[in-house]
């Protein structure tokens, strides 16, 4: 065992890149219009961050390609000149995956925003990477079809970003995550070559599944320029419920009880008191702000099945000690509840200037322990924490409320984070369930993957992108 570990050691990937310069920008002008290349100070400022707290880096220029062919030419040039390229969509990432690196070209794909095809015969939609996730969901829905993955930022996140991060959302428990809906990809490789991988076929085992390597690759292996999505029929009916608890443990135990009863709700969300207060402060939809934990639950499917499951869930919640249970009276109310839940992360910013959002996930049987651990860590380090998340998936978002200008406080936050990550790994969990590693979680990845895991990532990266021009320094070194 030891000897095989040793043989797997691959040194960190240390690239020496050329900084983007005026000559290379002139090279871009040969095939892009002036307005597709941004170099003004103001533009460098506004493309220097994504949705992650505290991470900023100005790029050297931003390109706005409109076709896959333009993407290919940009990459061919960057590869020839050995210049780093950072790909992004709407810039809503939560792990710093799309934050530029010094001297790089930003490849912003928001203009590749066409729905290429809605193939109702094969239950498939083909889209460009800049199409908004919400637009995909709406387009599918208008055709009586369903695209289930719904990350919190669904209204603005792009599908390219979702694929690159293998995003989850509120329906992961029953419907899975982005990966479960990707049938094929068109990818521009680091040297500008175009790769097609996967097909519209339900079964396809021709060769290694390269497609799956790009899902969750965080812009490090290639640039996705077309996505073929799997759609499913719309569920006929759904019901949304709220349950309020006086203790977090009781809420966690209720979640376990629901899952043990072999009911798979499509949504099983949890918000703690701090989060509920913030969400209500923004959305003002009459959420009670005096409970310790709130569960938002949704079941969908055939009407009869939905009715039965809703009743069972309400009964289980009451048995579990819920102070109050409530069934949403209308589709409007259900939508308001789900929309309010989506604002949780941003709403927490009402309480502090800096919100450090985490994304740990544990096996569901360990939820109560993880929740207690987070509370304890926050208390011991004197850091205010608001926790919410997809309890049905075991995916929690403890959010540390702080001020980045207070150095002493930030040290305490760092110490608290380390303990939360260690705790999650110890319980058989992961440091990130759906946000990705990017820059924010990079230091914690080796502890989870081990040397062999990191070595394999390095080898893989090296074979797709030998010069390391694609999003260098992200995920691992």
């Amino acid at each position, binding site marked *: 065992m030891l000897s095989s570990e040793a043989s797997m050691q691959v040194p960190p990937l240390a690239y020496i890149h050329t900084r983007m310069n005026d000559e290379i920008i002139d090279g871009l002008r040969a095939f892009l219009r002036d307005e597709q290349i941004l170099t003004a100070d*103001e533009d460098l400022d*506004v*493309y220097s961050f994504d*949705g992650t707290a505290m991470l900023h880096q100005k790029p050297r220029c931003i390109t706005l390609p409109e076709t896959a062919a333009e993407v290919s030419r940009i990459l061919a040039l960057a590869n020839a000149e050995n210049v780093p390229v950072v790909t992004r969509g709407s810039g809503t990432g939560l792990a710093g995956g799309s934050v530029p690196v010094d001297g790089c070209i930003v490849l912003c794909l928001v*203009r590749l925003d066409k729905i290429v095809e809605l193939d109702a015969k094969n239950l498939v939609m083909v889209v460009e990477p800049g199409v908004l996730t919400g637009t995909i969901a709406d387009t599918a829905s208008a055709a009586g079809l369903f695209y289930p993955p719904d990350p919190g930022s669904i209204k603005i996140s792009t599908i390219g970003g979702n694929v690159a991060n293998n995003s989850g959302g509120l329906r992961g428990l029953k419907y899975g995550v982005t990966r479960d809906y990707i049938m094929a990809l068109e990818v521009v490789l680091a040297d500008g070559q175009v790769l097609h991988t996967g097909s519209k076929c339900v079964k396809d085992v021709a060769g290694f599944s390269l497609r799956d390597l790009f899902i969750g690759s965080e812009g490090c292996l290639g640039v996705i320029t077309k996505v073929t999505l799997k759609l499913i029929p719309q569920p006929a009916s759904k019901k949304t419920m709220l349950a309020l608890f006086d203790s977090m443990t009781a809420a966690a135990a209720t979640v376990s009880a629901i899952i043990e009863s072999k009911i798979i709700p499509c949504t099983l969300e949890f918000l703690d008191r701090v989060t509920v207060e913030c969400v209500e402060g923004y959305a003002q939809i009459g959420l009670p702000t005096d409970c310790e934990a709130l569960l938002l639950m949704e079941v969908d499917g055939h009407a009869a099945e939905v009715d039965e499951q809703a009743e069972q869930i309400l009964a289980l919640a009451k048995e579990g000690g819920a102070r109050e249970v409530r069934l949403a009276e209308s589709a409007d109310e259900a939508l308001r509840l789900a929309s309010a839940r989506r604002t949780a992360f941003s709403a927490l910013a*009402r309480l502090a200037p800096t919100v450090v959002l985490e994304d740990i996930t544990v096996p569901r049987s360990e939820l109560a322990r993880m929740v207690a651990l987070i509370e304890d860590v926050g208390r011991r380090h004197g850091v205010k924490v608001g926790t919410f998340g997809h309890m049905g998936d075991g995916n929690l978002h403890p959010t540390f409320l702080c001020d980045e200008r207070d150095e002493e406080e930030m040290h305490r936050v760092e110490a608290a984070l380390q303990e939360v990550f260690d705790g999650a790994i110890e319980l058989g969990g992961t440091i990130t369930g759906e946000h990705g590693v990017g820059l924010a979680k990079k230091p914690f990845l080796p502890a989870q993957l081990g040397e062999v895991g990191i070595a394999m990532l390095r080898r893989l990266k090296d074979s797709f992108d030998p010069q390391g021009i694609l999003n260098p320094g992200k995920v691992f070194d």
Partner: protein
Amino acid sequence: MSDSELNLLRDLDYSVVQQCMHCGMCLPTCPTYATTLLERSSPRGRIAMMRAIADGRRELSRSFAEEMYFCLGCLACQTACPAGVNYSELFENARAEVERQGLLDTPKRKRIRRWTLRWLFVERTRLHLLGRLLRLYQRSGLERLVRASGLLRLLPASLRELEPLTPRISRRFTAPLHARSVDPPSPRYRVALLSGCVQDIAFADTNADTIYALRQNGCAVRLPDDQACCGSLHAHNGDGEMARDLARRNIDAFAPDTVDAIIVNAGGCGSHMKHYDHLLADDPKYAERAKTWSEKVKDIHEFLAEIDFRAPRAGCGVDQVTYHESCHLKHGQQVSEAPRQILRAIPDLDLVELVEADWCCGSAGIYNITQPETSMRLLDRKMGHVRNTGVRVVATGNPGCVIQLQHGGQREEMDVDVVHPISLLAAAYRGEGEKS
């Protein structure tokens, strides 16, 4: 503090800038981001640019100034922002600093600004004078003659496009119309009405309808004659000093502690007037009264809903209506349900919801003059949605929107009437007499 050290963005309470955690939730609601798909034209991008200036990492540039004037100031981002960023304050300070540094100054722009912000929209007598001249031009046949003569072709395209936006001037302004109805004998509430600038000369009937609807609901309505322009135009266009001056004059004119409410029927004015407390917070003489003022300012729809207005017993002569939300009513004041509640209360009137009802129509104060191209693009988008409703009456609670949508109707050759919701309510109340 020397002039070179002064910077309204650097002076600003830093927590306001820091409140933005750049999550991007504002992006899909921003009409200018939807137009360019560039971060610099998004609320998040604009705040990042302001932060760079507040931090001292950047100086104000012409390009920053242009972006601040490309922003509509529609405040849709404020409604969308879960973190509660006060974009309105950031935006007004940024524009004020742009003006203080004269970054966009040209002799022509200075002339126009002086004439509008410092002369016309200051004294009502001046507006009335302009109104009378315009009405004479419109009614004497001169307008028809000028339009027919092709003289308009001599104007630059952007202005030619705007000429039809000149509102039709009312025959009488608000004051004489106040006497058309009388206060109830034993009023439940004493209120004062802002007659507005454009509303007063171009939509005096809307004011008369507002007075009538209030009186039908047990209100005694005062119309202070020494009232001034509310100052929103000034505040949104970087003239904070004049905005404060006008606020003080209105507080004197309305004497807020003598009324139960100060009623506004223009979304844009109301949104600004509710912030007099903030505007005059550092004025020792007015700060206290400004607080009382802000508590008492109510949009007409909001006020009627609050006092449980009486549902009319007759219809208003219209059977279908759709509702366009004025940005500063919806996003500036969060008044969204009350106007719909009023429309739904009118018998035999069907309210058909408009897609993107809360998207800016492109009027945005004087945006249709300063950014005609984007303004018209937004108007076309709006009129497309109106067309899809199949309804020919659009109700909206702000005079700027009324003018813009009327223009949209002409542009698209659509048969649409644009009215204030309160005019429909007043028509229904008036119809009660006929019915009985």
